[in-house]
């Protein structure tokens, strides 16, 4: 596998092969924790950390791992990284830890982490793999935060409520009451709101891509296949 350029890695991770909108990996945390922008951002950042750690480690040990046992090895690396990140969040941001709860340890089962390890990190230099982890994680964070913001805005009429759980007391100033006296639209906060919102986001991305293609830009048609090892389930 030839080494992709930095530009390619960034554009794939953030847009063209976005985990949430194109590969549709990690849907379980995506749908469950996107009830507000801050929750989504928190879980996204945790995933960025995990992806950075796992991609770098797996890339660094790629010469020593027999291909027959690579999946268990990757899983051990991923599980250790997730545990470390979870303990870190528990220690530094206990409020965020309380809100996200089970979904931080569940990053282990996020198929995108294993997908990037198998499809990318195991074949590239650590620096490139780390960049890919960062780009993929940020792409995931982008979708999580957008979906969270959308649901929060429609559901409660606020944006970045409870920002203090991530940024301390200074974060309170971030909260925007976009719609005053809003009575709330409960559906957006309930699980159906997550599915409808994600569907609309995917449609929006496809629309933008179609427009770009019309203008003559070279936009790859879905290339989700090389992120997901087909034999693995995608939770």
């Amino acid at each position, binding site marked *: 596998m030839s080494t992709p350029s930095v530009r390619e890695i960034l554009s794939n991770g953030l847009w063209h092969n976005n985990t949430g909108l194109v590969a549709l990996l990690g849907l379980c945390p995506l749908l469950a924790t996107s009830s507000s922008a801050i929750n989504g951002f928190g879980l996204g950042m945790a995933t960025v950390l995990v992806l950075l750690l796992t991609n770098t480690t797996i890339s660094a040990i790629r010469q020593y791992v027999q291909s027959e046992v690579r999946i268990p090895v990757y899983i051990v690396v991923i599980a250790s990284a997730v545990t470390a990140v979870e303990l870190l969040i528990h220690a530094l941001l206990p409020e965020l830890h309380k809100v996200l709860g089970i979904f931080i340890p569940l990053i282990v089962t996020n198929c995108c982490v294993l997908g990037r390890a198998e499809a990318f990190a195991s074949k590239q230099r650590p620096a490139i793999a780390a960049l890919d982890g960062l780009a993929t994680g940020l792409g995931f964070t982008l979708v999580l935060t957008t979906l969270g913001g959308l649901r929060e805005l429609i559901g409660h009429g606020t944006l970045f409520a409870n920002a203090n759980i991530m940024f301390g007391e200074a974060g309170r100033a971030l909260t925007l009451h976009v719609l005053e006296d809003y*009575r709330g639209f*409960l559906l957006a906060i309930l699980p159906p709101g997550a599915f409808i919102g994600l*569907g609309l986001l995917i449609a929006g991305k496809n629309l933008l891509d179609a427009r770009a293609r019309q203008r003559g830009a070279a936009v790859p048609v879905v290339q989700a296949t090389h992120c997901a090892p087909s034999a693995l389930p995608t939770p």
Partner: protein
Amino acid sequence: MQFATTTSPHVHLGNSVGRVMRRVVYALLPGLLALVWIFGPGVLVQAAIAVSTALAAEALMLTLRGKPLGRFLGDCSALVTALLLAIALPPLAPWWITVLGTGFAIIIAKHLYGGLGYNPFNPAMIGYVVLLTSFPREMSSWAAPLTLHGSTPDLATTLALVFGERSAETLDAVTSATVLDLLRTQIGLGHSVTEVRSSPVFGLLGARGWEWVNLAFLAGGLWMCRQRTAAWQIPAGMLGALAVISTLFWLVDAARFAPPWFHLFSGAAIFGAFFIATDPVSASTTPRGRLIYGAGIGVLTWVIRSVGGFPDGVAFAVLLMNIAAPTIDQYTRPRVFGARA
């Protein structure tokens, strides 16, 4: 679409989507009149809001999708969706409830799934369920029936409540709990069905006032089945199953479970059986499948009413069986003439 006929002398029945939909509207008329008589002109106001929203939303989506406006607006399918939703809504609901529900039904539940003929769920019921889960307070204040209250709110009061400020006092003066609400809360408090039934909101068959509305819907529905606009198997299956399961549980414990005639003649059972469940797009399409589909709705309605979290369950039951309809069709396909079983 009119196909050119070849060889055999085929006779075209002349049916079209528009004709079927218009028949549904005619069949709704007796029920609508009964609703106006018992609950005041609220339902007509709701219908006006819903129909204008539905036509606007339909026109918007058709334009976005590049479809001919005249042909698809003229088939009356959006009109029927809007009318069904307007009948399901409380007559005094604020206007934005109706606009939101109808818009959701047409834009998301109908057109985002591919438009008429492709929607897996009944659009009117999606709109209703969205409103019910999002705005339980607005959705649970039903107008008090004429027979209980002695009068119905006049047009001015209705318009003021629908479009203007809604104070709790004016609202409380013209609304009352429906029987299904009452039954749910009272049984929750430990009262028996017989005690609850002595309350004045209960009539001969089901809820006072509601029984007339339901009889009118029954008449319209039977006419629709006779015209073969609706498949008779679906209402038969649904009302039959609802009657059987409620009779069984009523015989076992009459203090905890309401009698079958009460289940059949209150809430949305009859309206749902003839007008909601029979939506030709989202319902089962084989004769045997329709019986099973209807029976599923009947049983689920009873279960949701008796042990679920909502007073009435027809909308949820219909949506749940919509999910099951393709599978039911798969296993009940009739044998092709001449093929081995």
